[in-house]
């Protein structure tokens, strides 16, 4: 389990889960650490039909077709080759999502210009029904993001669910058109393995920035 900050703190639920687990003999296997740097050459990237050399624990195993704010179609795995910051958001969000962009920007600001050039940023909408290419374009202009190195992108609803699942992000549509979602900045290495995540909003998380630098140093390919 990751992202402790987002886990239920409802003591009764926890206790109930544990009680149920005991009662059922639920054998929770140790959750595979998504950050585990153990690419296994013996495992093929069969699930995704992508390059066999892709690490089996890469986010890029997921075949997702996206469209960016300029209407360019691309596949998630096309981002392979350099480290990436990935996040999920929705453009009509008034409170947290603007801060998410601020935080991504602040994180980048801690890097040198050369480092920044080697880092991609991808923000994927959890609200594809409303976040059309035009809406994303407007938001990208409004926030003056550095396209195409930064991209705001959309995909279909089923793929949003899968991408969130791969990234360990929870989200839920509310009846009033808003969404609940966990806020997370996720760092992928050049092969799409999750290296670090941060849910700190506002000023950049120093530990996270350090991971970004180290990952950039480890290089692109």
């Amino acid at each position, binding site marked *: 389990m990751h992202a402790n900050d987002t886990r239920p703190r409802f003591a009764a639920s926890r206790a109930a889960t544990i009680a149920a687990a005991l009662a059922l003999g*639920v054998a929770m296997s140790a959750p595979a650490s*998504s950050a585990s740097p153990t690419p296994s050459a013996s495992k093929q990237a069969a699930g995704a039909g992508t390059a066999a050399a892709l690490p089996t624990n890469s986010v890029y195993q997921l075949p997702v077709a996206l469209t960016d704010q300029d209407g360019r179609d691309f596949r998630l795995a096309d981002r392979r080759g350099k480290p990436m910051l990935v996040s999920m958001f929705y453009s009509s969000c008034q*409170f947290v999502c603007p801060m998410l962009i601020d935080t991504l920007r602040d994180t980048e600001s801690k890097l040198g210009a050369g480092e920044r050039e080697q880092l991609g940023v991808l923000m994927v909408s959890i609200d594809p029904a409303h976040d059309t290419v035009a809406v994303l374009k407007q938001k990208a202009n409004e926030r003056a993001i550095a396209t195409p190195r930064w991209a705001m992108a959309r995909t279909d609803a089923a793929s949003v669910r*899968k991408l969130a699942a791969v990234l360990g992000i929870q989200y839920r549509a509310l009846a009033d058109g808003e969404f609940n979602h966990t806020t997370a900045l996720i760092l992928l290495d050049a092969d799409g393995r999750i290296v670090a995540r941060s849910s700190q909003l506002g000023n950049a998380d120093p530990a996270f920035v350090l991971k970004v630098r180290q990952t950039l140093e480890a290089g692109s390919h």
Partner: protein
Amino acid sequence: MPLHRLALRAVPTSARRAIGWLAMAFVTLPLAAPATGYVQLPAGKLTSVLAGDADTAPLTIAPFAMRSTPVTKGEFHRFVRAHPQWRRDRVPATFADAGYLRAWRTADAPGDAGTEAQPVTQVSWFAAQAYCEAEGGRLPTWSEWEYAAAADATRRDARGDPAWRARILGWYARPATGPLPKVGGKPNVYGVRDLHGVVWEWVDDFNALLVDGDSRTGKDPDKLKFCGAGAINLQDRENYAVLMRVALLSSLNASDSTGSLGFRCVHPTH
């Protein structure tokens, strides 16, 4: 003797057939040709055990067809043979953890004679979703699952009945020392079986269950944690059996698998 087995034995086969036949009478809409083994559920309203600040009104559930039983080991065996990328020795770690199908004798077969009719477990969310997609469907949403699971043999919503609640809760207190029972328990009013008493089940939007710690007080302890309004409030605190499912699902990652977590599929029919 586990409660659910007692319950099964208490109902003669002929009566079970009759109940199943009656349940089939609810089929009023043409199915979009789902695989066999699905039953139709009509549209309806659901007051979920979950409720956020913004959605305490009953949910409207569109009609859908649901597998009458969880996917079995035998069925998943055939799926893995047809889609070998889902063998445990080939699946990318992103989609399934080390526990995936671990109890199978070999990478492409369960290997235990006589267990084909048990529900498959040790499957990740991705594997379950892939299975349902191969059948032309998907996993049920939490709301769809809860809607189906609110019914008993005669009522669409039996949740207000303390006896019904107690019966379901009884399963969760049953020690799980023996093998999983076979699928094919007593059908509910729609003809869906085994929603309670056999396994936990994945849902499509398991990662939508943002159960917040302080929903007991209704306060929003940390607005920064979630975009938009606060997390889910647990509206119906009497329904422990269903809330335990929410708590479990909300704690899982999509690549996790456990020995008591299975799944079934649905087809939207509207």
